[in-house]
């Protein structure tokens, strides 16, 4: 196994920790619903690397979310959720594809995956499902992703070109 830690993986790990911390500290103070910052880091990697890579990063990012205090009720739920979202958004991976449409579709699909798992979790536990908040979360994530995802893809492509990945 090539166990060399690249600049790109360091950047992704840093972004994941920052996104998880911001979603715990800053976003709840701004409003009841906000964009899913974790997905905005997972989706670019999945688009560049495919489903397996997306799922791997999603799993790691989800574990960060699970362990970020106040830690969740059940450890591992966010990990599996984001792994699924990473795998789903990786389905839009194309070799050398530079479509402006793919990132949006992949973000929408990933946000919908996270929302669907959340709805399933609430429904099976007999809790009321927050449909409106879930819808807004998908819209906000896709909207912010419209700007952030292509930016991150460009930055990561630049690192790969300079052999820093």
């Amino acid at each position, binding site marked *: 196994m090539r166990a060399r830690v690249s600049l790109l993986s360091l950047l992704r790990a840093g972004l994941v920790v920052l996104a998880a911390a911001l979603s715990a500290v800053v976003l709840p103070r701004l409003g009841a619903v906000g964009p899913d910052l974790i997905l905005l880091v997972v989706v670019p990697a999945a688009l560049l690397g495919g489903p397996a890579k997306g799922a791997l990063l999603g799993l790691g990012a989800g574990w960060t979310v699970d362990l970020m205090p106040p830690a969740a009720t059940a450890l591992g739920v966010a990990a599996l959720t984001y*792994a699924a979202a990473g795998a789903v958004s990786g389905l839009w991976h194309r070799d050398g594809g530079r479509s402006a449409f793919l990132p949006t579709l992949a973000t929408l699909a990933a946000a919908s995956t996270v929302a669907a798992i959340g709805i399933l979790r609430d429904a099976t536990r007999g809790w009321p499902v927050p449909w409106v908040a879930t819808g807004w979360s998908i819209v906000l994530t896709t909207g912010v992703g419209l700007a952030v995802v292509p930016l991150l893809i460009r930055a990561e492509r630049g690192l790969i070109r300079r052999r820093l990945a």
Partner: protein
Amino acid sequence: MTPPRRHRTLTILIVVTVFLLGLDLSRPGSTSFLRTGAAAAFGPLERALTVGRDDDVARLTRERDELVRARRQDAVTVQQAREVTAVLASPAAKSAKLLAARVVAFSPASSSGDRRVTIDVGSRDGVTKDLTVIAGAGLVGRVIRVAAWTSDVLVVGDRDLTIGVRVGKAGRIGSVSATSPVGAAPRRPGQLSLTMLQQGTVAVGDMVTTLGSVGGRPFMPDIPVGTVVSVDSDRGQLTSTAVVEPVVHTATLDVVAVALFTGRTVPRAPATGSVK
């Protein structure tokens, strides 16, 4: 990593995650070393990210303003603890030592049933598990996990939290939780459900205060929880149920206090009965 190897790694990691999830669900506490370790690493980061928020201070309630002012002078002095105590009308809270704290992180909005916050005091400040957390208006919740510099608090409105309460002037006993009873009218988000021990003993406007636990853990007595806003109609259920509006708004929590309950050390003197 070559693709087959990556798939193998991914499969192993997912299996490990599912195993840990099962372990965490079946034996709560067995994975606490993971949470405590992560809290020790991420807690200081969350504390650092919480900077001054001038725009939000304007929205704070009067009680909280007083707490903020007290907080700014000095975080953990006894003088400030006295000021925080003065804000609280609760007579029970006056006998306890209070540790002022600031909320630094919230549970993600995506998890609808979870109401947890992280506060910026931990075991180094003397916080231990199952202490009561209060704000100027009333009960916030109880400490469920303690790291070196931060603690996690289970807040009123979390599905896992049930509080024994006294209702109204007569002090009738019931319990408050976020789970609505079967068949009752749906509650708005943030509202709580009150279940009385007896039928027909609750009225709109009744104050709901904590009943208190043995040794003041996890809840000290006589701390306001909320007000009864409506009583559910009789549907043939065993006891009365009602809707409670909590006094503390968890979405805008900022300055809170951990009540370091000190049990009494002086023995109670017996009294002699006097018949005239």
